């Protein structure tokens, strides 16, 4: 997917604390704004962001409409083993995007 940006180290030492920075393209429409026709624009937000390391959950965040458009989230994790880190965003109107990065832990 081209609408996701992830900044993660490719390699890490075992036990090192590494930072993950994620950005996803999304309007995060609050459901409190009126459009040009005066009607309220229906809410359309990402509700949940979950990160897993080789299938094990390492971070979870529940969003509210107060998260800015194109949500950016950064967090840390301990490098335990080499493998795949998967980021998953789910939200209103069936929104679901998944993106993975691989990391080599030595």
């Amino acid at each position, binding site marked *: 997917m081209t609408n996701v940006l992830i900044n993660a180290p490719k390699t890490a030492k075992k036990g090192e604390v590494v930072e993950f920075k994620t950005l996803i393209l999304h309007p995060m429409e609050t459901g409190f704004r009126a459009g040009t026709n005066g009607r309220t624009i229906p809410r359309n937000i990402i509700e949940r962001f979950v990160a897993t390391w080789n299938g094990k959950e390492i971070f979870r965040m529940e969003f*509210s*409409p107060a*998260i800015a*458009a194109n949500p950016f989230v950064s967090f*840390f994790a301990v490098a335990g083993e080499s493998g795949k880190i998967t980021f998953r965003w789910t939200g209103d109107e069936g929104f679901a995007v998944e993106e993975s990065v691989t990391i080599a832990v030595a």
Partner: protein
Amino acid sequence: MKRASVTRLDRRTFLAGTAVVSVLPLSAARATPEAMAAAIREVVGGKTIREERVTLDLPPLIENGSTVPLTVSVDSPMTEADYVKAIHVFNEKNPQPHVFDARLSPLNGKAAISTRIKLGDSQKLVAIVETSKGEFFSASADVIVTLAACLEDII
């Protein structure tokens, strides 16, 4: 003379009345300090919250409320015995009191998260942190917003 003062009073009451009427529908749709306190109570229960160990970092003067960088970091060893379980952020004057809830574990190694949020008005933000020991810590920040989110033109 007497009559003039009576009409002035009438006009004043009339104006005050219209002001109240026009403000009411707006305020009904907004979170209030009370709503924030209620949302915090829901998370914390009756436990005591100590104002320490947490840093809530965001600019004190915000030009555009649509994207406000926010960082919450907690002074915690992040070991199996003592780690940060959850970080909650609340606001006073957006339409809803919740901003986000994040869940952490010892796998994070460092209890610090950053994101970007929307702010509808100058207000107070509160971060509540829950540790694995069942303790609650908090930090708050007052911010001034010159251009609120939700007010930008919709094309």
